[in-house]
């Protein structure tokens, strides 16, 4: 009986401690990321699908600048093919290769939904995130795993890995509904600087 009680106690303490760690990590990340209003980074994406022989790799550039004056998000794949979008205060421009065009109303609504999600991750509000996701520790001490409380058709979980000073997100890891995994690693990050010309199409 004593053994069982110790076991239950250990379990309770362990889960309480994990919850504390998660909260502490969320707070640290929130504090660190809230200071970030502009970012310019290269990214490398690797997608592992069980139904493909080889992982799919691509790379590109992510920039954002969120000031009172203007909000800009720039996301471009450069390898193996060029495609992307630039969102400026709700107006969206899309391109594939050399062809560029403004988004239609319907595409705008779709991309606004995406950017809305992105902006929420950038703002990293722990209260809001905990409302929508079950948050648990990730694979590393600097990672957090988010599982949507309401089933999502798009992914089953997202894992974020932060820089040691919590000022940046270094890795994003999406696990799909069919256990496929897409990892996006950010490097050469420049925080809170003016966006370079490389962030314009």
């Amino acid at each position, binding site marked *: 009986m004593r053994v069982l009680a110790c076991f239950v106690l250990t379990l309770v303490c362990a889960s309480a401690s994990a919850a504390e760690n998660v909260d502490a990590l969320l707070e640290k990340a929130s504090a660190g990321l809230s200071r970030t209003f502009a970012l310019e980074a290269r990214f490398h994406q690797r997608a592992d699908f069980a*139904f493909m022989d080889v992982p799919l790799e691509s790379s590109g550039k992510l920039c954002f600048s969120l000031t009172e004056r203007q909000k800009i998000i720039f996301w471009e794949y450069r390898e193996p093919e060029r495609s992307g979008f630039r969102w400026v205060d709700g107006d969206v421009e899309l391109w594939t290769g050399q062809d560029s065009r403004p988004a239609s109303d319907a595409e705008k*609504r779709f991309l606004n939904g995406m950017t809305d999600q992105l902006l929420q991750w950038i703002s990293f509000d722990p209260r809001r995130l905990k409302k929508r996701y079950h948050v648990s520790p990730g694979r590393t001490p600097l990672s957090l795993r988010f599982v949507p409380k309401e089933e999502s058709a798009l992914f089953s979980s997202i894992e974020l890995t932060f820089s040691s000073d919590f000022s940046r997100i270094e890795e994003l890891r999406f696990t799909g*509904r069919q256990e496929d995994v897409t990892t996006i690693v950010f490097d050469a990050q420049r925080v809170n600087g003016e966006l370079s010309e490389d962030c314009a199409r």
Partner: protein
Amino acid sequence: MNALSRLYPVLKRRRTAVLAFFACVALLSLLRVAHLSLNSSSVVFLPDADADMRLAAELLENSPMSGMLFVDVEAANAEDALAAADVIEKRMPPETARAVRFRVSGMTPDKTLRLLPSFFTPEAEATLTDALSENTVRERLRDARAALQGMGGTAAVPWVRGDPLRFRDVLLSRLPSGDASSVLSAFSRPVSADGRHSLLIFRPSGDALDASAALVMVQSVHDSARLLGDDVTVRMSGGPRYAAANARAIEHDIRRIALLSLAGLALAYALLARSWGALWIFLTPMAATAIAAAATACVWPVTSGLVLGFGMSLMGLAEDYAIHMHFALRSGQNEARVYQDALPPLTQGFLLNLSGFAVLLLSSIPAIRQMAFFSVASLTAGFLLAVLLLPFLPGFSAPKRLCAERAPRVVGRQASLFLSLIVCGGLFLACFASLAGVRADFSPRALSADGPLIARDAALMRDLWHLDSGMNVILTADSRDDALIMGSRCADALRKNGWKVTTPSDFLLPEKEAKDNCARWNRWLRQNEPLLHARLEKAAQDETFRAEAFRPFFDALPRDAAPLTADAPLLRELGLREPISMALFDQETESRILLSCSAQDRPERGADDLRAAIPPEYRAHALVFSPRFLETSVAERFRQEKTLLLFAELLALLLLALFLRRPAKVLAACAPPLLSLIAALAALRLLDLPLNLASLSALPIVFGLALDHGVMVTHALERGQDGGTRRAVVLSSLTAFMSMGLLAFSEHPALRSMGCVIFAGLAAELAAALWIIPRLYVKKGPGA
């Protein structure tokens, strides 16, 4: 006039027969009224000659769209707006209304493939056969690979595995380009282009015109909005919003004003009538209204509720004759003399009013004709009751001394032409000046409570959600299948002509066509499945997909598919049944189809362009209109009817001249109606209220009462005997004032503007009748 003095003894002899006659009429009227069929349709407000407009109004009223409540939810971002919309939806009582979604939701690759056979037209067959070529299959898999490698990532997996060759394009190509790309939306419900608004649409569970259900719907949204706090702004538009605002305001007004009105009426009778016989006066307008309602129902078996509402407000006018008879009979003169003295002006007043309303029988608008008929019947009943029946009812004529003791004797006077000319000339000029200064708004929306607020919200929502940015075509057929065929062919023709069209025939095909398509699909799949396997397998190897990658696709391919019917559960699962039932209507037959059209980049294109683009063979079945045309048409028609109203009033003045003959007397009698008109218009201007349908309908009441009083007072002054006229004028004005003038303090704008006109008009006509007219009279004599 001797004939009139002989009328009294005749009536007295036959009073039992007269009483029996009126009792029978009243009883029959009550029986008819008990079975009265009322409708609240706006069709009666549209001219008979404009058949298209009437049909459009009827169709719009029967359309499920008219009962919808549109709720716009604004928040800092899309997620908050969607979350707030969820809260509002969850808190809506399901027995009152349910949210409808005009968008495809839950679309998955297997559902797409289940839809496909019913839409497998010969063109689709050609497209998919081409897609089986080696190069196309490889190209599609390369695209799929690029999607997985790019922004699509994990989100693209189900579609890459479930529909690698993009069979869905066959379905999406049926939709306009904008709609096709919105099928796979990022959101569960519509989100505006600026990403801060979400749209909720509620459909009442019961009767779309039920005001109490509308109140519950709107209150539920308000309560949810309060719960959501200041970060979320909620706006509403649609029929229930108007119905709820009106119901709330009217309920509030009734509570506030009814008691005061009843107390005022009781006080007026207690102070001025002071006899139990006056109760008959109280009953007269009720009997007159019942008789008028029954007579109207005999001519128009289904009577407009609004006409009946207007009829109720005529009670004050119907009561007038009874009041005059009551006081005349109590003036101390013998009854035969009363009939000789009081009956001529009373009859003149009655005929003047009658002529005005009779002119309105010529209106091209059925509602105005119904109102005019009701008024003629009500006035006639009121007059006949007052003259033929009331004098013989117990207590109506006694005690006789009351008025005789107090009535001042005004002997030997006649109207001064000079004074009358000066005063009435001035009043005429002021009347024209007042008319010029009043703004008119005959839009039905101007009568709604919270009108400006709702209109502002509705305008904002229209811009944001393009709720009525285009025009509509309604096609009428004999059956649902015919309607779908017509809808589909018209939509094709309109799209070729540059119109963007939303039609349920994009989602649903006529049964026979769907059946043929399914047979075509089953045959095609049997013939091509081995080839499909072979091509996909080879291309998969080339593009590094594993052999099992596309198993979900092959598992979902529908074999021996059955045609999609209007009641198929799949349509409900995808949220398509709702848009279909909204635009495919007419009770159970669903034989009318609505095509929502917009001119895309050419807003200058109008209804005529749209009609011209409809295939000639369908033009006779098509009705083209813009969403707000009813409102503007009704307003325009009423603006035109203003001329008829003016003509009615001019005719009344002309008859007045004919009856009274002497110009000075005519001018003097004109003073109350003219001053009442000036005061009513001035009140509207001072309070910045427009001349609307309600205030316009109050004008004949005030004008009629003022004319009556002008005639009665001038007659009394001429014959040098008041005969209870002044007291009758005061009581008549006071009762009308208490029953309708107090509406000036209403919250509801229609009641308020009606009350303002009556309040100011009655005050002015009373002053004119009792104060101005006597001052236009000078002693009879050589110098007068």
